[in-house]
């Protein structure tokens, strides 16, 4: 990460700088009277931040204590997962009516098509559970937990390409540089287990067409870098550079850290830079993680019925199933935000074949995770989310061919599901039109999604604020409403 310039916090060691001086001055008698007339909020200024700043302080009693976000990177099609649209079959091959497309901006991949022939899914749909939730036949295991999940079919975004769209989902802004959801939670709530990061990322990759994932997706942006997500890798070195070189004993390491720390503290007194304190804390955390991470990552003690529940794939490090099981273990150990990424959902062509494979990768393990959390009483306070960064178009990309078709990106409507953590089970929320193109009922914007997530964690999205470079930032920027209808 580049050099951070932080707003200095109130610290006795800090030398008075220009901004400090003027902010003090503003409380002078003269400016007091005039200022309060000109700026009615002048004296209310810091109250919101003061409320938000206490570490580990929730604004109200939370339903969820942690979040596991099963991110399906590349954007799975809503029309082949949860949004059943028989009209597409009836009107197969017909051109998408302009009244429905209504000027929607398209990517360069289909913008030059002169026809947009409607394409129905090749996969069948069934209703499942008492909730009668429509789920495609790609997801037989998810179908078994239909009554545990809430499917939201009315998600929408503005971004039409992967990178801005995922960035939007992670940070609340399409432009990179803002802190991620996990970092905001870590900042707002602090860490629960001091031996593990409060924000962990696990990635896996399917055989489908995939797009890159970058470390900025778990960056803490302008928040203290201790809130950054830690990528746990598969294999014997889950955290890069965590293990000691051969020949260095644990006590040698301790001595080393103590001395480095005292040097760092000297430097901190000199400069007052908070990043130095962060660094000291990170060295200490890394030291403890040398013990705690291998312990959490070791699934050898998991009984066979659990292994089989997630699918035997979960014994293969680096698979989605292995990561899902890992996610449960991390959640048990007090990690607040566990972000899984499964790549390969970008089906511009060969959609049916590729989605079949992608679904097999994630279906059983995702459902198993929900069942496993439930039997451990953890679904009470763990919010599980499954979904991608946008939806896919209802028309065929390229030449019309019902046997081998693809779909371009579509921001106006897509489906995700959530389970546990204070979300109503077995609910179907929001609707799209008969073409699956536009939201017609209960739209949920990404800002609303973020507001709702923070709400389940006991945080008011309007109060979780960080002031940086002279302005106040929120995960939801200046928008977002809590979707109360889906809260239990």
């Amino acid at each position, binding site marked *: 990460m580049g050099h951070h310039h932080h707003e200095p916090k109130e610290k006795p060691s800090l030398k008075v700088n220009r901004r400090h001086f003027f902010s003090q001055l503003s409380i002078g008698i003269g400016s007091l009277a005039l200022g309060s007339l000109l700026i009615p909020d002048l004296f209310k200024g810091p109250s919101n931040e003061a409320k938000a700043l206490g570490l580990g302080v929730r*604004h109200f009693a939370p339903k969820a204590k942690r979040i596991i976000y099963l991110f399906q990177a590349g954007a799975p099609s809503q029309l082949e997962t949860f949004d059943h649209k028989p009209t597409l079959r009836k009107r197969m091959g017909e051109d998408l009516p302009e009244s429905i497309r209504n000027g929607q901006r398209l990517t360069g991949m289909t913008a030059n098509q002169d026809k947009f022939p409607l394409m129905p899914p090749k996969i069948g749909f069934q209703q499942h559970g008492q909730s009668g939730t429509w789920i495609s036949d790609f997801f037989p295991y998810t179908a078994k937990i239909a009554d545990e999940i809430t499917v939201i079919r009315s998600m929408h975004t503005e971004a039409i390409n992967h990178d801005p769209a995922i960035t939007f989902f992670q940070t609340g802004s399409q432009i990179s540089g803002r802190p991620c959801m996990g970092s905001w939670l870590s900042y707002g709530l602090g860490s629960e*287990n001091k031996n593990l990061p409060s924000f962990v990322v696990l990635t896996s990759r399917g055989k489908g067409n995939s797009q890159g994932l970058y470390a900025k997706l778990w960056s803490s942006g302008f928040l203290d870098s201790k809130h950054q997500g830690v990528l746990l890798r598969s294999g014997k070195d889950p955290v890069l550079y965590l293990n000691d070189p051969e020949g260095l004993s644990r006590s040698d390491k301790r001595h080393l850290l103590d001395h480095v720390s005292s040097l760092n503290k000297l430097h901190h007194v000199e400069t007052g830079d908070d990043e130095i304190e962060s660094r000291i804390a990170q060295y200490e955390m890394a030291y403890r993680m040398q013990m705690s991470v291998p312990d959490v990552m070791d699934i050898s003690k998991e009984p066979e019925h659990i292994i089989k529940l997630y699918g035997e794939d979960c014994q293969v490090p680096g698979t989605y199933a292995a990561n899902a099981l890992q996610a449960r273990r991390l959640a048990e150990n007090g990690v607040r935000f566990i972000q899984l990424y499964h790549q390969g959902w970008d089906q511009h062509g060969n959609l049916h074949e590729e989605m079949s494979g992608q679904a097999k990768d994630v279906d059983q393990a995702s459902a198993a995770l929900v069942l496993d959390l439930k039997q*451990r009483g953890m679904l009470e306070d763990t919010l599980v989310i499954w979904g991608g960064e946008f939806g896919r178009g209802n028309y065929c990309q390229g030449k019309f061919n019902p046997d081998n078709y693809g779909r371009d990106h579509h921001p106006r409507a897509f489906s995700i599901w959530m389970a546990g953590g204070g979300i109503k089970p077995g609910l179907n929320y929001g609707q799209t039109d008969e073409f699956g193109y536009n939201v017609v009922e209960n739209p949920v914007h990404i800002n609303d999604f973020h507001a709702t997530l923070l709400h389940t964690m006991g945080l008011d999205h309007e109060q979780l604020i960080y002031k940086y470079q002279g302005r106040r930032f929120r995960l939801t920027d200046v928008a977002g409403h809590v979707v109360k209808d889906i809260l239990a």
Partner: protein
Amino acid sequence: MANTFKSKWADYVIFGLSIFLIFCLLFESYIELPPLVAWIGRWHPLILHFPIVLLIIVIFLDPSRSRISQLLLTIAVLSALLTAISGFFLGKETGSQGDLLFWHKWLGATLAILAAIWYGLLAMGRRPKFLIRGMQILMGGLIVFTGHYGGMVTHGEDFLALPSARKSQEIPENPLIYTHIVQPILENNCVQCHNPNKQKGGLLMTDLSALLKGGESGNTIIPGQPEQSEMIRRLHLPSGDEEHMPPEGERPLEADEIRILERWIALGAPDTMRLEHLEPSEPLSQLIRDLMIPDPLKKWETLPAVADSTLINLSSDYLSLIRMAGTTNALKVNAYKPPEYHAQMLLDLMPIRENIVELDLSGLPIGQDELSFAANCPNLEWLEIDQTPISDEEIDTLRILQKIRLLKVFETGIGDKSVGLFREWKTLKNLYIWDTEISPSVLEEFKTENPGILINTGIDSEIRSYFVDSDSIPTE
């Protein structure tokens, strides 16, 4: 200073106004006010402050004993009369007069006329001191009561009530939607101005028939048509709008409160419908249930205070102490397994045992010591002792706990005896209890006996076999 102000004119004006006031009171029902005169009434809330202050000053200076400025005396009495007359005009504008206004009017009028007589007695120079003094005491009392009744007319009857006296009714188990949900919302937000004493806009909101009758703007609610109902329209106006209700300066209704009113009207504004009559899919059902959940922060208000520094001192790398929310003194304690575990880590928390409401000891090699500690936490609601080696004998220590709501004991060594303990806990709502020594028949019996407890005995066997037995990884 000599008393230089002595004007016959002032005496005549005071005499004239007194007669006018008495005339007004006697012939009230025959009087029709021209608009300009009615407008004078609007000045009542402004000028009423003068007699309150001036009369109190002259009463305390006591003209029967000391010489006070005649000018002050004259202005005080004049202002009392003007206030009473303008008040009379204002009162005429209000359609119907309730108890509060009745008392305010007559007390105020009495005060003004009494002041005029008292002024006359002083002017005539006849000064039986006991009479003057008596009148002064009476006037003092009248000022207090007139002011108080006037205040109640303007600000609502319980404006001076202590904050704790604010109505927050307990909602009964299966509430009547109108009586227990809708009316209290109106009571807390609207009735202050729409009651028999004030009746702003000619609207009463004290009961259902009054609501259905509406006010000057026509209908207030149209059963079945929330969008057409004046009340809902006004609630949704931007807060700066002149017609927005409640008016500027008052607390607007919460979004959920508005939605409750809307759904109730949509359902036809029923008066005998109860919560259980609602379809589960009806949004009103959930809205009411939300209201019925007591705020957890409230129940923790009585816990002993615990300082942040205490939390920092007691927590360690393997022990986290977190406030449940905000600044509450209720704590959640999580213990993680250190390289060398010892029960002392937990026993150190004895000083704050009353603050612990959630305790997570999952996966730790705990025994008697730890459970004795847990038993010492009287406010414990949530206890996780799953994946531990505990047995019947140890868990029995917990018997004295009175508030346990959630218990995780899966993957432990507890047996049939423990079920007896669970039977005693009347507060228990969630129990996670698979992979123990408890025999299936005992567990099944306990389950049927207690339909109110969510007893999780592991993944449903049918679903489990679908996941576990089938070859989950198909070969391509």
